[in-house]
């Protein structure tokens, strides 16, 4: 289910408001203040059909028209709906649909379609093969340049139909944005449902979830290995927190840290060889490095405070973490092997859950502001910070592997939910999830051979 709060009219209105309140609006120009976001939400869906051209630098969304694939109804999965949801969630596209089916081999009527202000055009077909598989084909057209931008065909068994749709979304996304698409990646998250906890592995859109672990006791802090094949997490099945490493396809798992006291907050090193973890084995909560196969941990922090939530810089050079050595939890940075500690956050008295972008230039984290827990983004080059959401109970941000979207947990009308936000335009979307309270997301890496 998508709840994308965007409307062209709303965007124009907000830019006017932003200009009026220029003194109170921090730069850069693409930033929307919370007042703007509030106005946009008030606009509601009714004005969504207004299409006003926004001049100058602003939030540009790429228009794309998705046609029904020919014979799409023969497929158990609604291919074009999956593609539409993917492109809308990226918040980079303005998707319009056309019920008139056109297959990938038909050449569009360029003049006619351009008159309808359409720019990018997708056609396709689904054919059920004699052996029971499905042949899914598509083509992407640039109507302005009257060019065929390419296409592909996939012969897949029914369980792989969603994956084929996601790969089409990736193709379209990459062709039109020059960025890598994340629609074929996976996410992990935890649900709690009448005292039963499940650790799920799902597609990036939250669908197709399979339970990796089911337990009567809590599961927290899932963390994908860089190879996308293993998941570290904390399980309370022994009535204390213990760190496991779990091979997702085989279901085989191994205890990596069960030292005296609590073991938690696993975070994989970028080379996949070790995990930073929080252990209380020497008293207090301190950060250690341990081989992914287990063994003797090496202590990295040396304080009498709480040091926890380690997160590696993607180049492996540093670890960002939470410490209350200054009196309340803030985010700090240290070399990956331990050493001199530098403070990173100075806004507010409570900053936790650091998550670094894949290019190492941005830090997402949770900041308590006026009693509310909000997702914040820091530009590590300028040290400027901005709030990214309108919600007030945000938790556990993690970046998509292309660095453009951030997944996080929050509460909507009192119910736990997972959301993704495009941090450049702050458009957020809710993920369809499983039943029950849903929390602790972590975005998996690009898979090889994608």
């Amino acid at each position, binding site marked *: 289910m998508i709840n994308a709060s965007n409307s062209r009219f709303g965007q124009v209105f907000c830019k006017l408001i932003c200009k009026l309140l220029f003194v109170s609006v921090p730069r850069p120009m693409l930033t929307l203040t919370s007042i703007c976001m509030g106005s946009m939400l008030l606009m509601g869906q009714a004005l969504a059909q207004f299409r006003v051209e926004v001049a100058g630098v602003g939030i540009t969304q790429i228009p794309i028209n998705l046609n029904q694939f020919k014979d799409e109804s023969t497929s158990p999965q609604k291919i074009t709906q999956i593609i539409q949801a993917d492109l809308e969630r990226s918040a980079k596209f303005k998707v319009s649909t056309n019920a008139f089916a056109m297959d990938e081999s038909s050449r569009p009527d360029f003049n006619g379609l351009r008159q309808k202000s359409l720019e990018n055009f997708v056609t396709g077909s689904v054919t059920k093969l004699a052996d029971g598989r499905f042949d899914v084909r598509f083509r992407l057209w640039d109507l302005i340049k009257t060019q065929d931008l390419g296409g592909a065909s996939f012969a897949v068994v029914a369980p792989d139909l969603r994956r084929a749709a996601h790969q089409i979304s990736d193709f379209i996304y990459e062709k039109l944005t020059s960025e890598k698409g994340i629609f074929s990646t996976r996410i992990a998250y935890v649900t709690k449902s009448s005292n039963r906890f499940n650790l799920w592995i799902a597609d990036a859109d939250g669908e197709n979830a399979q339970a990796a672990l089911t337990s009567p006791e809590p599961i927290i802090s899932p963390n994908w290995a860089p190879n996308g094949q293993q998941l570290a997490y904390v399980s309370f099945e022994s009535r204390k927190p213990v760190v496991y490493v779990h091979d997702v396809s085989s279901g085989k798992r191994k205890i990596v840290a069960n030292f005296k006291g609590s073991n938690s907050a696993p975070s994989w090193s970028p080379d996949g060889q070790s995990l930073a973890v929080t252990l209380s084995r020497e008293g207090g909560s301190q950060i250690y490095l341990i081989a992914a196969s287990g063994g003797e941990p090496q202590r990295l922090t040396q304080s009498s405070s709480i040091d926890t939530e380690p997160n590696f810089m993607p180049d492996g050079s540093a670890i960002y973490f939470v410490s209350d050595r200054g009196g309340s939890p803030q985010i700090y940075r240290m070399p990956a092997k331990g050493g001199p500690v530098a403070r990173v956050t100075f806004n507010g008295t409570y900053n936790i859950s650091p998550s670094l972008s894949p290019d190492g230039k941005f830090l997402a984290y949770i900041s308590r502001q006026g009693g509310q*827990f909000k997702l914040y983004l820091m530009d590590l080059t300028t040290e400027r910070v901005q709030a990214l959401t309108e919600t007030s109970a945000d938790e556990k941000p993690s970046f998509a592997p292309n660095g453009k979207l951030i997944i996080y947990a929050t509460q909507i009308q009192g119910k736990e939910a997972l959301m993704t936000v495009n941090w450049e335009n702050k458009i957020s979307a809710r993920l369809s999830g499983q039943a029950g309270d849903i929390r602790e997301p972590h975005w998996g890496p690009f898979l090889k051979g994608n």
Partner: protein
Amino acid sequence: MKKVLSGLCLSLVLILVGCASGVKLNEVPVEDKSSSLVKADAAVNALSGKSAVTSVQTSALGAMNMGPAGIEKVVYFDYDSYAIKPQAQATVESHAKFLSADKSRKVALEGHTDDRGGREYNLALGQKRSEAVKRSLTLLGVSEAQIEAVSLGKETPAASGSDESTYAKNRRVEFNYK
């Protein structure tokens, strides 16, 4: 439940063993399962030399995991605090006495927080609480080897709600005797 299951398993094993070794069980009519089971029970009792009554002393079994009788198994904490409150001191002392009296007894101290704040940070706060209780116990003479201080953070609240009285019920350390 466990006892019934193990009793049945034991009976089954003995019936099978009986078949293999030529014990008189073979002469029992196949339809009369109940009497063959009864015979197996008698065989168990004969082998172990204990009466059936001995295995059903649940109160004694309960005491193994309950710590000192009549003493509260939980102490509470103020917001943002890890100090044992004066009213909890007596509880802690009773547990210390109990543990000192029998060096084989072990206890897990489980620290908890209210549900405000991040999960991992709250796990560390809960750990601070359980370690505060551990420190009190060791200062009162209990051996470190008898205590494991762990945390469940905000994961298993005792009460649900968003008011101060709920929060107060969740900021606690529980004594979980092993």
